[in-house]
């Protein structure tokens, strides 16, 4: 952990909600990326917390762009930098709505073309910036302002969609594990071509959790196995240390659900359904890791 630079790339202090998971993640993303970096930000929480004209809090250039447009903007930017011989990191920092929903077409196109940039989706599992409307990434059972009785359909499996593009590097992470984020961003940026990271970012107002619980809730997600930390470098699939430990004896998902107000309408049947999905997914992940190891 000593290798993480002390220097902060964000000036004090963005106007995120107290206890914001996406801000915690961004701190470590920027530490890993360093100064030769441009952030591309579509409409999301991070487009309104960075400052009001004529000032901002980032110490790297930030390019704000339309909701559906982040990956296409990063494509053009990266191609232009490479064309003139610059190695500048182009990093998209986008919410789950801008990634899994409205931005997925541009993202898919950019990944297929093999554009050289890192796309990071910070996933707070709803449209946080506009007051928590459901997104494609909102999990089953979660209350949002547009699913007032809890979402009745599953969270979109964004990572499997991205994986279908056969990227050189893909990873999941969670705001509660900053060193893991730092290391994964470092590795991602050392690899040419399209990279994707999906970071679970607990959101106190949206998840209806106390602000001090952000890190704790993120860890509960990992420990229950509802969120698995892994990375995939070309064909090498590895489960990250915190999830490896958690998967030995995952905590019951119900504890994770009960810790959050957004799941307060989840009944027993739904809870059982969620637990079954988690169990199944963990088996899939374990099998994939085993397969990758055997075929290394």
């Amino acid at each position, binding site marked *: 952990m000593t290798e993480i630079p002390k220097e902060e790339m964000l000036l004090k202090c963005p106007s995120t909600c107290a206890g914001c998971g996406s801000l915690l993640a961004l701190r470590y993303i920027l530490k890993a990326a360093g100064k030769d*970096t441009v952030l591309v930000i579509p409409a999301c929480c991070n487009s309104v917390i960075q400052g009001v*004209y004529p000032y901002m809090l980032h110490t*790297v250039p*930030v390019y704000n*762009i339309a909701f559906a447009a982040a990956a*296409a903007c990063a494509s053009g930017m990266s191609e232009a930098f490479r064309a003139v011989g610059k190695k500048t990191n182009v990093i998209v920092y986008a919410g789950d709505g801008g990634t899994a929903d409205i931005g997925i077409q541009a993202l898919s196109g950019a990944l297929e073309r093999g554009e050289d940039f890192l796309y990071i989706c910070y996933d707070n599992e709803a449209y946080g910036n506009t007051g928590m409307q459901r997104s494609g990434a909102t999990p089953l059972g979660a209350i949002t302002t547009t699913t007032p009785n809890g979402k009745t359909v599953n969270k979109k499996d964004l990572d499997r969609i991205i994986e279908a593009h056969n990227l050189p590097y893909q990873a999941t992470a969670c705001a509660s594990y900053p060193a893991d984020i730092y290391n994964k961003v470092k590795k991602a940026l050392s690899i040419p071509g399209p990279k994707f990271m999906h970071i679970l970012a607990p959101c106190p107002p949206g998840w209806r959790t106390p602000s001090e619980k952000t890190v704790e809730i993120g860890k509960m997600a990992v420990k229950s196995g509802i969120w698995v930390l892994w990375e995939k470098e070309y064909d090498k699939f590895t489960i990250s240390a915190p999830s490896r430990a958690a998967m030995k004896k995952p905590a019951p998902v119900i504890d994770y659900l009960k810790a959050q107000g957004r799941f307060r309408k989840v009944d027993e049947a739904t809870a059982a359904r969620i637990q079954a999905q988690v169990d199944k997914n963990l088996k899939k992940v374990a099998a994939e890791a085993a397969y990758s190891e055997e075929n290394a």
Partner: protein
Amino acid sequence: MSEKLVMSTGNKAMASAVKMAKPTVVAAYPITPQTEVIESIADYVESGAMDARYIPVESEHSAMTACIGASITGVRVFTATSSHGLLYMHEMLHWAAGARLPIVMGQVNRTLAPGWNIWAEHSDALSQRDTGWLQVYVSTVQEAYDATLMAFRIAEDNRVLLPVMINMDGFLLSHIMQPFEMTEPGDFIPPLNLPQKIDVNDPKGYGAMSPSDIHFTFRYDMEKAMKNSRTVIAETEAEFAKRFGRSYAPVEEYLWDDADVVIVAMGTLGKEAEVAADLLRKEGIKAGVMRVRWLRPFPLDMKIAGKELVVIDRDYSFGFGGVLAGEIQARYPEAKIARVIAGLGGQEVTYEDMAELVRTRKIGTEFWFGIPSEEQ
């Protein structure tokens, strides 16, 4: 003369001009009838004839966005589209102009569905007239080439820094083959110096929240740039004429001075109208033509006093009227206009038809060519 001329479609001439202008990034998505523009450019890039990156994006929304992302790094960019593609870009057209990026776009005018129709109409571009883009409408293959070269110089002029759209009639011009002179521009287009380009050593934030009263001043600055563009266009067209011998103006006038009645149109209709004027002159009708080239910025000094105008709109604003006629009337309230709606969906409008529209004109009315009078 003939040795210098090459036969080319409008599309290929535009692609040739883009090659001459040496952009660094081209991002585009194919759509009929624009396709040949970007096929040609993709071929130039793959063959090494053009030292550029061609980004084969998955949509027009992404085409314009990739141009924006590339442009803000300070390099020259180009894209091309048509019709539904242009409309799919709509959001990003505002973004490009608001970000003051000198993006140049070839726009092949085509009708909008339903039903599916691939032929010429100006409604696509006119529906984007309020996005902050400069718009020029061309009428020959040569003009498509020349206007594309000039567009880069005009857009990138630091007094302007607004994107430019070159409009060319689908099929009628995009696919016609005419002889044209593929002039080498030399240093006609100066190197791009984008003052607001991204610099990691001097980090800045672009397009963050802007308070209402300040936002207002940004929009006023765009209008100032649009006003400046009139001067820059005039300078650029004068310099082009001086260097290459072909002159253009915001409005092209034909048999103008003594004309009693004038056909006003854009694009190929405005060129074929000259033949109608010749025909009418033989009948003793003092007819002329005013071909509007620059729609944005709108021409300031149309010399229409004492003349009757037959304005042919290849477009329509439902619940209002023809866009060109409406704009002329708004700028020149005293104008005596017979408004004609013609050529929608690629409807055939010949010079003979136009001559008849002049003969039967009724000032102050709107006439839909092809709809029986008793139904109107």
